């Protein structure tokens, strides 16, 4: 038994080192900082100056009374739920469509959907900056003006009359466009692994196309759906790069374009540079993420899908 334990440790070691160095240590450090008044990186005098739960108490009061922070929380919820839905269901729909059509057309189609993911962030951000630009030169404005649908240019993501929905629509749209290809690729390759005979058998058994999708394709890729859902959920809770660009270039409203992850980043590195407070918010974010991740696995009955090991090491 001891030998097996040592063997297991040996195989796990490389990953353990990485996890400890790049996840556990930063996490401990963040938790530490969240109990200090660290601002403007005054590490020397503030890193050991504990203030107890002050940062957490501040966070509580902010959540309770600050209207801007309310907007951030609302935005986070709407953004994560809607984008997750688009990424998983949209990815599934795209994968099914590309699976059912001719392979040559389907390849080009899938590459098209991969473009947003392959485009550098700055270029992609710039594209949407021009597209939603508030002046008459903006792509959307210029198009609608020429079509005669609007009389004067609209400030799509920032006009208070259309907030919060316009800003939310833009951030969900832009992130969905990037994220949807992930599910598409995973689901498509899963579909490709289904033996051809299975689909033929279902057809002979009398299944119409949508019945093949419902009874055969989707149930067989259930594991992949769980995987993509959890993966995308966690990455949506924690990622902020696209949102950062959109907010920074004023494509969308500052608060209705900011999720909790971006709020943590901005608080620590950009606006007020209050690292202690940002760390407290980050700790809360990690806790929320862990709970949601575990909850999703539970809901999708992950434990039932785990198969026994394929052999002894």
């Amino acid at each position, binding site marked *: 038994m001891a030998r097996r334990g040592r063997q297991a440790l040996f195989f796990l070691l490389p990953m353990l080192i990485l996890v400890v160095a790049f996840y556990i240590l930063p996490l401990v450090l963040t938790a530490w900082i969240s109990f200090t008044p660290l601002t403007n990186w005054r590490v020397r005098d503030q890193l050991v100056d504990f203030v107890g739960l002050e940062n957490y108490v501040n966070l509580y009061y902010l959540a309770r009374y600050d209207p801007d922070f309310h907007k951030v929380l609302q935005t986070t919820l709407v953004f994560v739920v809607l984008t997750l839905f688009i990424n998983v269901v949209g990815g599934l729909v795209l994968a099914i469509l590309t699976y059912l059509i001719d392979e040559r057309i389907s390849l080009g189609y899938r590459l098209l959907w991969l473009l947003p993911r392959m485009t550098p962030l700055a270029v992609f951000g710039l594209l949407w900056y021009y597209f939603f630009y508030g002046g008459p030169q903006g792509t959307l404005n210029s198009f609608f003006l020429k079509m005669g649908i609007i009389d004067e240019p609209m400030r799509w993501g920032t006009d208070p009359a259309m907030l919060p929905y316009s800003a939310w629509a833009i951030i969900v749209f832009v992130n969905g466009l990037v994220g949807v290809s992930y599910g598409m690729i995973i689901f498509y390759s899963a579909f490709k692994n289904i033996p051809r*005979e299975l689909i033929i058998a279902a*057809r*002979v058994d*009398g299944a119409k196309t949508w019945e093949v999708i419902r009874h055969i394709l989707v149930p067989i890729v259930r594991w992949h759906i769980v995987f993509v859902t959890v993966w995308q959920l966690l990455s949506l809770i924690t990622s902020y790069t696209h949102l950062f660009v959109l907010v920074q270039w004023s494509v969308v409203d500052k608060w209705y374009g900011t999720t909790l992850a971006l709020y943590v980043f901005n608080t620590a590195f950009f606006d007020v540079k209050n690292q202690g407070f940002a760390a407290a918010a980050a700790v809360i974010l990690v806790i929320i993420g862990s709970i949601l991740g575990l909850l999703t696995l539970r809901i999708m009955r992950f434990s039932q899908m785990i198969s026994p090991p394929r052999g002894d090491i």
Partner: protein
Amino acid sequence: MVEVRLEGVTKRFGRVTAVNSVNLVFGDGEFTALLGPSGSGKSTILYLVAGIYKPSEGRIYFGDRDVTDLMPNERNIGLVFQNYALYPHMTVYDNIAFPLKLRRTPPEVIRDKVLEVAKFLHISELLDRYPAQLSGGQQQRVALARALVKEPEVLLLDEPLSNLDALLRIKIRSELKRIQKELGVTAIYVTHDQSEALAMADKVVVINRGVIQQEAPPDTIYNEPRNVFVASFIGSPPSNIFPATMDYTEEPCINLPGGTRHCVEEEYAGVLWRMKPSKVIVGFRPEHAEIVENPVDGRPVIVGEVYTVEPLGRENIVTVASEDIHLKVITPPEVRPEAGELVYVAVERGKLMLFDPQTEINLKYIAREWSQGG
């Protein structure tokens, strides 16, 4: 049940013609085997009958009904695949019930039918399991149950036994035939295994390169192959086939390898006189010859040297080299000549087959066509 008819059916995939103007009738309640090497087009014919492929030309009928343009689900067929194609995420019960659920059959009826077919195929105790928990033979029965629960008019079997081990294959073989006869369903069975085809089928259709070579009961396929392909494909080991020159001085005689001569039997003489080919293709089955020491009794005899002897317990396969031709002969276990020994291979009277060197068709069939055509 129903008769299945293919009229001038051709199927092309791009530039490849997989099935070439095939006319075939699968008799009502008959068990027909489609036999051919891989790539011969036998599975394509099955998929054409199933409606998975649409013919490039020709029509397909179930009885009087033209089904050429019907989808598979509109044809009332059951299909069993080589790899069973069971739905991995469904239990055995759900697998069998699936076609009925799609037909919106009431749940009580589904239950009764599934239990009935499961009992019939002895899989009642497996209904709660998933396909991955079953052995190959069990999966095979479940696949058959799923095909039969629909009460199909036509049962299509695509090499259903190939993935089973040899012992199980022979067991299920006889069982499958019993089931088919009991239900009286029209069955089409695709296989590349000649012993399966000969053992199970009422009629065997031999196919090569998308063209039907012969369509006949198993006995006829075995005893009177229509052409060289059928003769060389059927049998284990298959027929010995070699070219020989002819001599017409008094009567048609064949110059056999090793320098002997054999003057042909009555049934071949007429056709040979009329055609007067300078060469023929000669064939005989390894089990229709024996190794003798003295060639005296007027049987066709070939002189040669023993090349190898393969003892198989029940019998030996002796390969004899004569000129540059290798002939196989099945001998009783006690006949075990030494390699290098000079021997005579005597072919049973009337078992020598002669084929036209151009068309490779059995001269017996040419003679028959002439006598029929007048």
